[in-house]
């Protein structure tokens, strides 16, 4: 997030696109609702009529995967009617001409044709967005989990630059991170192309720096594989040893039948986890790890805030902290790492090596955490980025995008679009929430959410078991008929193995981010 949760309550205009916040980020949603109660306007852009829509001034119920066309249409109107922030665009941005050229192809009529949002609504939205300043845009995986995910993100950024809503309080582009520490895992360099603190592995200076710090030679200079490439590598033997830490890939990756084949073909899998999972089933060695409350450490939230995690209980049996396990393996390769606690690792290694984090030390985050960038010990942290439109790399660059449809769209044999996501009472594959008293009682099974119209046509009753199938698999699942879902859509989650949406999802990827298109594939629905 460029900005902070604390700003939500006092924001004047909030646009929520591709984010079902009341379920996926419930406490963040409470601040959005507080803002509305205090008079702010909320615009929701989402195929579903989810709970936040009750608070919205406008709901743009777009077709799944049409975000770029819709956003381009809105920008088309902003430019045509001279409603954009010329001063910001001229002084703080580059590439406006390119943007102008692309969005020229999306007059409201065209944008309406693709997105299903009426011309009138597109024009009204553009006018409304330009009438209140600043505005915050929040998004989640409804933007990124598409084959055009990167372009979706760019389009959101284009809109905010065009409106001059970056670099200030109550503005910004705000992706809410799905998992508690995705931000942190990125910051730490658990990515194939960067060292900790986003220092590139193909930069010789960065390599030199880490070689010195880690007292090693010849750090690899070629960016590594991303998860889908790793999985593929298992099948052709390019990847022979696979180390899976804490992820339940068997149930979270798209197209579970394909994933099972890939994992089954692996030569050697090590899993490090709290429980046996659908993934450890494929492992050759399983290492028992300490859980969240069983070690000291830090998490970094969506708003770049580094907060403390503390030990409250002891791990069971011989389970050990993850950092200890990695250190023990390094030792077996002849490397003696000196850090012997999470605090050592942060204070003496990471924060020393990553300049944007240099000012964050454990003794400074005893209470509230600090938001990076925080380069020095006297720096108070950064609640919002790009102050006054001064971007990290000079000017903000418009990156116009052409709309592309999802990789798989409905047709005669698979006439519905399946979109997926998370529900409030469980987290991912339930390895944790499924073992908490009470939560299974609140949500005990997967459902396929369908519209009232489609249920009527298909003769499906509330709670009836139905079959949902795609080209990749099929599930038998309880039907939930709800006004939240529009006609033509099936909506499912991935919390339970049985009825898991990932039996059906498409593994087609965004070519840049390699994120799979969880949000759109074609399915058929049948009565059983």
């Amino acid at each position, binding site marked *: 997030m460029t900005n902070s949760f604390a700003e939500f309550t006092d924001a004047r205009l909030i646009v929520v696109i591709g984010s079902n916040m009341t379920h996926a980020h*419930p406490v963040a949603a409470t601040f959005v609702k507080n803002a509305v109660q205090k008079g702010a306007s909320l615009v929701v852009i989402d195929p579903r009529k989810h709970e936040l829509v009750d608070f919205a001034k406008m709901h743009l119920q777009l077709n799944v995967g049409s975000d770029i066309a819709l956003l381009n249409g809105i920008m088309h109107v902003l430019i045509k009617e001279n409603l954009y922030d010329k001063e910001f665009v001229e002084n703080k941005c580059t590439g406006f001409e390119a943007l102008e050229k692309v969005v020229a192809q999306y007059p409201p009529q065209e944008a309406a044709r693709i997105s299903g949002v009426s011309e009138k609504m597109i024009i009204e939205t553009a006018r409304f967005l330009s009438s209140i300043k600043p505005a915050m845009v929040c998004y989640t995986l409804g933007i990124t989990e598409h084959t055009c995910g990167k372009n979706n993100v760019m389009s959101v950024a284009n809109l905010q630059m065009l409106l001059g809503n970056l670099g200030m309080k109550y503005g910004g582009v705000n992706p809410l991170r799905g998992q508690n520490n995705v931000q942190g895992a990125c910051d730490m360099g*658990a990515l194939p192309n960067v060292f900790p603190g986003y220092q590139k592995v193909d930069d010789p200076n960065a390599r030199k720096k880490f070689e010195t710090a880690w007292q090693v030679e010849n750090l690899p200079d070629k960016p590594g594989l991303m998860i889908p490439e790793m999985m593929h590598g298992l099948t052709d033997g390019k990847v022979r040893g696979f180390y899976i830490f804490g992820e339940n890939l068997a149930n979270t990756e798209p197209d579970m039948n394909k994933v099972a084949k890939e994992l089954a073909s692996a030569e050697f899998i090590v899993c490090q986890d709290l429980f046996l999972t659908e993934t450890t089933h494929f492992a050759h060695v399983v290492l028992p790890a300490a859980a969240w409350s069983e070690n000291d450490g830090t998490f970094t939230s969506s708003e770049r805030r580094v907060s403390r995690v503390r030990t409250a209980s002891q791990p*069971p*049996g011989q389970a050990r902290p*993850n950092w200890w396990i990695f250190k023990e393996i390094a030792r077996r390769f002849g490397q003696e790492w000196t850090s012997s606690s999470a605090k050592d690792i942060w204070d003496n290694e990471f924060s020393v090596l990553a300049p944007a984090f240099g000012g964050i030390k454990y003794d400074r985050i005893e209470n509230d955490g600090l938001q990076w960038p925080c380069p020095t010990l006297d720096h108070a942290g950064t609640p919002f980025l790009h102050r006054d439109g001064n971007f990290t790399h000079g000017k903000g660059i418009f990156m116009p995008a052409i709309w592309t449809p999802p990789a798989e769209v409905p047709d005669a044999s698979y006439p519905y679009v399946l979109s997926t996501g998370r529900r409030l009472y469980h987290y991912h594959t339930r390895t944790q929430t499924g073992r908490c008293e009470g939560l299974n009682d609140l949500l005990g099974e997967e459902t396929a959410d369908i519209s009232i119209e489609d249920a009527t046509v298909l003769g499906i009753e509330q709670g009836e078991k139905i079959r949902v199938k795609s080209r990749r698999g099929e599930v038998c699942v309880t039907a939930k008929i709800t006004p939240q879902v529009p006609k033509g859509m099936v909506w499912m989650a991935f919390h339970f193995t049985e009825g898991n949406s990932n039996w059906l999802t498409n593994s087609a990827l965004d070519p840049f981010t390699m994120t799979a298109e969880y949000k759109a594939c074609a399915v058929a629905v049948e009565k059983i």
Partner: protein
Amino acid sequence: MNTNTLVLNNIEYIFEDGQTILDVARQNRVQIPTLCYLDGVEATGGCNICVVELKGEKDLVRACCTKAENGMNVLTQSPVVVDARKKQLKALLESGNHNCSIGSSQGDSWTAFQMDSIRTEQTDALCPRWGDCELQNLAYEYQVQWNRDNLPETKFPKETVNPLIIRDFSRCIMCGRCVAACNDIQVNRAIRMPEPSDSQHVIAGKKDVALKDSDCVFCGECVQACPVGALLEKKSQYVCRPWEVEKIRTTCPYCGVGCQQQLHVKDGKILKVTGVEEGSPNKGRLCVKGRFGFDFIYSQERLTTPLIKENGVFREASWDEALDLVADKFKTIIAESGPDALAGVSCARSINEDSYQMQKLFRAVFKTNNIDHCART
């Protein structure tokens, strides 16, 4: 700019336009008790405990909903104030099932009552909030005497039909905090104060239904706000008293909001979770997962020892054996196929330091950049 000042207990304080007497007092650490006021929410003035005296005025006023005025002279602990609070506390205590052996002693009945309470602690006889109740604390502080012998009949049955929250109407003082928490803080709009035509207790849903049949999403904000024993967490009732627990601040392990939690720990076991009231970003709020999703760590299914697969089944192994096997196998693969034949996926739920170590293992030890996590999901 003119400065506004008022006097609280003979000391002058500056205040800003729009502040209430309670705001000014809190800002300056002058105690004014209240049972209904909730930070960040418009005051309802329902409990009548925050009354204060304005010098020269006959009637007491409620500090939570009286705006501070220039030159005001406020007494927060004068005899009339104390007397009024005592009366109001007595009325509240007598209005419900507040059988908590606290307050000034009343001869024989006190001992009998206390003995009875100790004997029956594991039952409903003694309120589960005993020791952690704001009404009880005030009753003690103000040494309120009240008639414990004739506890009123319980008009509305306890609601226990959902898995997480107990509603015990017999102890509700109708302060309205839960309603404010639900409507103005979390904005779930599941519960409300009764209309004259309703039965006179806090109502869930439009038609007075059980929580589970209302719009309740079990965030538990109402439980955290309840000053008495009327709203309770099923998981933690009777398992601990406040003086037995250590409070440990930590960060929620679920979504990317990063809510700050207070773990209530007794003998190394987490029994309850609440939001850190002043903590950023959540300011005391939690959702159902953050508040009730902690007990998986005590599951009997936790892995407790390394496992090695042999002939298709796992057998237990020591750390040395398992780690030696992993290291040997990885060494062989590197020797035969090069470091890029190894790949690793880190965990986006675990602490930063774990991810740091894992990428360091892959880069500095194995010499490959094949390290990723589900960064984009």
